[in-house]
């Protein structure tokens, strides 16, 4: 008979104090490789459409005529394939993930002369 085998571990935990990360207050550190969301340096983009073709879910749209690169955030599976195939290496995997939302999120990036402006619709 060995009952309460767990108690040693339990008391150890009790003395150690919680292992919990107080999340909204303090974030757990991310790693360099952490895949969060795809960001684009729109200025470098040449709108070749490689990312659009390779994206397994079809989350990315490019429009060469309008100089528009857009991504459906709710379709992106963070596989990073687009950033791998990007010939200009202008797509980059950020550490921070996309925030939850109340509806569809489509981030559009338009290559302007000097500025980039993400707008949400």
């Amino acid at each position, binding site marked *: 008979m060995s009952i309460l085998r767990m108690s040693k571990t339990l008391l150890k935990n009790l003395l150690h104090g*919680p292992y*919990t990360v107080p999340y909204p207050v303090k974030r*757990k550190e991310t790693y360099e490789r952490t895949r969060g969301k795809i960001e684009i340096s729109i200025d470098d983009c040449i709108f070749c459409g490689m990312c659009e073709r390779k994206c397994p*879910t079809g989350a990315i749209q490019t429009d060469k005529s309008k100089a528009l690169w857009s991504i459906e955030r*709710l*379709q992106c599976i*963070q596989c990073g394939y687009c950033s791998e195939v990007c010939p200009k290496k202008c797509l980059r995997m950020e550490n921070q*993930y996309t925030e*939850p939302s109340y*509806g569809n999120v489509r981030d559009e990036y338009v290559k302007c002369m000097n500025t980039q402006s993400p707008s949400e619709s």
Partner: protein
Amino acid sequence: MSVVKKSPWILHYDGTSCNGCDIEVLACLTPLYDVERFGIINTGNPKHADILLITGSVNEQNIPVVKQLYEQMPDPKAVVAVGICATSGGIFAECYNVVGGVGKVIPVDVYVPGCAARPESIIDGVVKALDILEVKRKKR
């Protein structure tokens, strides 16, 4: 005083998820993330739940189940679609047996992106759903 926001109870249903989001939902309960800090309890029973977390998209056989679970939850209630499959069908959107996002079957309040959705994301999503609960409560 409204306490709806202080004790959200969760019902988790796995649509056609690949388990990735499922285990992340479960990971939220574990010591590292411990959502019980916010009073969140994973009840597993629609009649006790305030928030329905759905992971994975919905397929033919799941439609009545999801509808029924939603139906059996007492008001005010909110639906959180966790993971890309649940929000849009994701990589499986083109499969013959996948209807698409959960939104096609029941009204979804919060979309949590990610493949798989990170526990932090899920917590954020639930917190967002709390505001919706509060609004719905006032409407009643």
